[in-house]
C-alpha cells in the first residue's frame, strides 16, 4: 500500500470514528464554553462555595436552551473575584442577589448581563436573602444573632432585627416570614415584616436546615438533629396560618445527616439528601407530601457523598453535586425524575447550591 492510500484510509477511519462517537451521544449534548454567556436564557446557576479563606468562590451557569455550560461567569464578566464562600443566590425580577458569607457582602447582579450593579457590605456572616416587600429585604446571619434589614432602593442596611440566635433559611408565606434557627438552634421564628418584629416561634427538632412550601401551602422543615446527632433527625409539617405542627416524621437512624429539603414544581413531592454511614441508606430521597413516613430506601443510592441537591421546577430533573475532595472542580450529576442518570458535567470548587432561573 502506497503512502497516499494509507493517508486516505486513515482519514476515512477518522471520519467514521467521529461519526460513530457523535452518533452515540444522547440527544441533548452539553458543551462547555470557556467564555461567558451573551444573554441569560432559562437556566441554572450553580453557586460554587470555594474553599474557606481561599477566595475562590464562583458561579457556574448552565444554559438550558443552548445546553451550554459556563464556569466562573462572575469573574469573566466583572473582571474580579466573587469573594469568599458564596452561600446562596436569590433572583428578584431583573436582579440577582448573591450572598457571600465570609466576604460578609451581597453582590447585586443585573440578570440580563450578570454585571454587578452594587455591592452591599456591612454584614457579619450572611447566609440567605429574602425580599419581604418591594423595597425591603431580610438577610439571615450565622453568627450575629440578628437579621439585617436591607433597603432595596439604596442598598443599605437600615436596621437589624435582634433574634439572639443564628438564622438560616427564610420563607415568606401570607406576609409572615418564617426563619430557620439552624446552627445550635431548634426553632422557627415568625416575623411580621410590617412591624419588623418577631411575633412567634415554633419549636422544632435540633438544627432545622431547610424549608419548603407545598401545594397546600404547608411549611415543611427538615432538621438534622444536630451535627453531633444530639437528637433523632426529622421532618415536620407545619400549618403556617395557625403555626401548629401538624406532623413530625422521624428518621430511623440516629447517625444520619439529612439536608437540602427541596420540592418539585407542582409542590407535591419532597426531595432531600441524607448521608449516613450505611451506604445503602445514603443518597437522594424522595417523599410525597401525602406519605405517612420517611422512606427508608433512597431514590438514588450513591457510594459518594453528595454535597447538595436541587430540583428543576419545570421538569423535576434532580441536580446533585459531588464536591469530590473539596479541593478540585466539583461534578454535577443530573438524574431524571425516575432516578435514571441523565448526564454529568464539571463545575467548580464545592458546588453548594442550585438556583433555577425559569
Amino acid at each position, binding site marked *: 500500500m502506497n503512502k497516499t492510500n494509507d493517508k486516505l484510509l486513515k482519514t476515512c477511519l477518522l471520519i467514521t470514528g467521529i461519526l460513530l462517537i457523535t452518533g452515540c451521544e444522547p440527544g441533548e449534548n452539553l458543551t462547555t464554553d470557556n467564555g461567558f454567556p451573551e444573554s441569560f436564557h432559562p437556566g441554572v446557576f450553580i453557586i460554587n462555595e470555594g474553599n474557606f479563606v481561599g477566595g475562590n468562590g464562583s458561579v457556574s451557569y448552565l444554559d438550558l436552551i443552548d445546553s451550554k455550560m459556563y464556569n466562573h461567569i462572575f469573574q469573566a464578566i466583572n473582571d474580579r473575584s466573587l469573594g469568599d464562600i458564596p452561600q446562596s443566590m436569590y433572583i428578584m425580577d431583573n436582579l440577582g442577589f448573591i450572598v457571600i458569607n465570609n466576604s460578609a457582602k451581597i453582590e447585586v447582579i443585573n440578570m440580563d448581563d450578570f454585571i454587578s450593579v452594587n455591592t452591599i457590605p456591612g454584614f457579619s456572616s450572611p447566609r440567605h436573602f429574602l425580599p419581604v416587600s418591594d423595597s425591603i429585604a431580610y438577610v439571615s446571619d450565622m*453568627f450575629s444573632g440578628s437579621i439585617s434589614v436591607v433597603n432595596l432602593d439604596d442598598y443599605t442596611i437600615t436596621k437589624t432585627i435582634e433574634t439572639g440566635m443564628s438564622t438560616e433559611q427564610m420563607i415568606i408565606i401570607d406576609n409572615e416570614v418564617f426563619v430557620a434557627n439552624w446552627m445550635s438552634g431548634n426553632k422557627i421564628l415568625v416575623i411580621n415584616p410590617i412591624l419588623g418584629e418577631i411575633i412567634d416561634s415554633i419549636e422544632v427538632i435540633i438544627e432545622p436546615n431547610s424549608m419548603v412550601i407545598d401545594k397546600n401551602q404547608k411549611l415543611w422543615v427538615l432538621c438534622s438533629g444536630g*451535627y453531633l446527632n444530639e437528637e433523632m433527625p426529622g421532618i415536620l409539617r407545619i400549618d403556617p396560618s395557625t403555626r401548629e405542627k401538624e406532623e413530625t416524621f422521624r428518621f430511623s437512624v440516629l447517625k444520619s445527616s439529612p439536608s437540602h429539603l427541596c420540592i418539585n414544581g407542582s409542590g407535591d413531592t419532597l426531595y432531600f439528601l441524607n448521608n449516613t454511614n450505611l451506604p445503602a441508606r445514603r443518597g437522594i430521597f424522595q417523599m410525597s407530601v401525602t406519605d405517612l413516613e420517611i422512606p427508608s430506601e433512597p431514590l438514588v443510592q450513591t457510594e459518594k457523598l453528595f454535597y447538595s441537591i436541587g430540583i428543576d421546577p419545570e421538569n423535576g430533573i434532580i441536580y446533585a453535586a459531588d464536591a469530590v475532595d473539596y479541593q478540585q472542580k466539583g461534578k454535577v450529576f443530573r438524574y431524571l425524575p425516575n432516578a435514571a442518570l441523565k448526564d454529568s458535567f464539571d463545575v467548580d*470548587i464545592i458546588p453548594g447550591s442550585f438556583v433555577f432561573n425559569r
Partner: protein
Amino acid sequence: MTAYKKIHIDSSIIAEYHTRNLSDLLAENTPLFIKTYGQGGLATSSIRGAGASHTMVTWNGININSPMLGQLDFSLIPVSFLDGAEVFCGAGSIRDYSGALGGSVNLINEPDWNNRLNLELSQEFGSYHSKNSHFSSAFGNSRFQSQTRFFYSAAENNFTFLNTEISQVPVIQERENASFIKSGLIQEFYIRPSSNHFLTARLWYQSNNRHLPEPMVVIPVYGNEKQNDHFLRSQINWKYYSRKVVVSTTTAWQYNFLNYSNRTAGIDSENRTQIITGRVDLSYDLFPELQLNSGVLGDYAYIWTENYLKPAEQKHFSVYFSAEKNIKQRLKINMMARQDIYHGELPPLIPSAGINLKLLKETDIHFKANISKNFHKPTLNDRYWYPGGNPDLNEEKGTSGELSLDYAGNSGGIFLYQTGVTAYRSKIDNWIQWQPGEYGYWEPANLKEVLSKGIESFLSCHVNLTGFSISIGTNWTYTSATNIKPSGSSDMSVDKQLVYVPEHQTNAHIKVKTGGFMIKYSYNYTGKRYISSDNSQFLPSYKLSDLSLSYAYKKGSNRAEINLFIGNVWDIDYQAIAYHPMPGRNYFLNIRYFFMKKASAKSEVRKKIRK
C-alpha cells in the same frame, strides 16, 4: 561525611540573618519550600513534597513540633536565638526521631569556649512600622559559659497593595489586621568541670501576639481574628566523654499556651500543651573503623484544650540502634533501625541503610545512597479534635530512597567550591487529609497516596583574594509530588501535582566583601503552585530579589555595623498564598554594636570540645 543528606547552616550565615526569622533563613539557603503568609504570618515547610507535619523541628535534639498540629511555625523562631542549624532531607532524621517523612530541621545552640565577655546590641527600623531589637550578653571562661539573649520584634505590617479582586477597577488598599508583637528570652549555661564532662542547661521563653489578616476578597473587620501564644522550653543535657564512649542524657520540659479568637464566629479557645522528654544516647567506637550508636527516648505529652472532649495524653517511647563501618577510609556503610512504642502499641520498625563512597583517592568526590522506611503518627488533632477527630486513623507510612553525588574542591585556599546533586523517590501511604464526612463536619481520613520524585542540587563558590572576597551560592530544586490514589470515579487529582508544592524552585545569592564593606544580592524563584488538587487553578510563579549593604567598623574589642536591607528590590506584585497580598519594596535599617573579649592566644590552642 555520612550517607545521608545534611545541610549545615553555620554561624556566619546565622549572623547575616540575625534580625530575621527561621523561615527566611531556610527559604534562601536550603531546598526547603516555605509556605508563608508573609512577615509575621504562619510559615511552614514542605520538604520533598511532604506536608508541614512531615517536617520535624528539633531544638538541640528535642522535638518542638506542636503535638496538636504536628507542625511548627517557622516565623516564630528568631535567627538571633540560634548558633547554627542543620537540615536533613529524607531519612537522616531517623537518628533523632521517627515521623519526619519529609525531613527535619535541628536548631543548634552551642558555647564559644574562647569567649570571655561579649555584648551585642542591635536595633532595626523598617517599613510598615517594623521594629526589631536584639540584645545578647555572654561571659565565662574555658570551663563555664553563660549566654543570655533577648529579642523584641513588632510591626504594623500595614503595607499598601493593589486589590484587583474587590472592584472592577483595582484599588490601592492598606493591609489591615497583619500586625504582630513578639518577644523572647533564651538563657544558656555551659559547664565543663573536666575534659570528660559537659553540662548544659537552656531555657527559652517567648510570647507572640498577632492578628490574622483576611484574604483580599474579604472586607477586613478590625481585630476580628487573633492568635496569642506563649511557650517555655527548657532542657538539661549531660555529656560524658571517655576514650571510646560518649554518653549523652537530656531531659526537657515544654509548656505552650495558645489562645485563638475569632469574634465574628464567637470563638475564643484556649489550648495548653505540656511535654516532658527524656533521652539517652550512647556512642561507642568499638574499633577505629566501627562506630555503634544507640539511644532511648521517651516523651509524655498532656494536652488540655476546649477543642477535645477531654484532655488528651500521649505516651511515646523509642529505641534506636545504628552502626557505621568504615572501610579503608573510602567506604562508609551505615545501618539504622528505630522502634517506637505508643501507649504500649508497636508501630512498624523503621529500618534504614546507606553508603558513602569516596570515588577518587585524591579528590573529594563522594557518592551516597540510602534507602529507608519511616512512619508518621497522626497528630493529636487528627485523633481527638471534637468533632471529627478519629482515634482509629492509620499511621502515614513512608518509603524513600536517594542517590547523591557531592564534590568539594579547593585551589590553594583562594578558590573554594562545593557542589552536589541528589535524586530521590519517596512514597507516602495513608496520607491524612481533612474533608467533610457523612455528618457534614470535617473529618480526617487516610485518603491519599503520594509519590514524590525530585532533584536537589546546589553549588557554592568562594573566591578569597587579599582584601576582597566573593561568594556565590545557589540551590535548584525540582519536585514532582503527585497523588496516585483516586478517591472515586470523579476524582481528577490522580497524577496531579499536590497543592502548594512548586515543581521548580531556585534560590541564589552573590556576596562581595572588601574591607568593612559587604554587598549581597539574593534571588529566589518560586515556580507556579497549584491551588486546586485537579490542577485547574494555580498561582503564577514569581521572582524575588533582596539587596543588603553593610559596613562594619572595628576598633579593638569594639565593632559597629550598619546594614541597609532592601526587600523585594524590583517591587514585584506576587502572592505566596492565594489572595493574601505581599509587600512591595521594603527597607530595613539596622545598627549593631558588639563588644568582644576573647581568650588570649595561648588558651585558644586548647582544642574545642567535640560536640
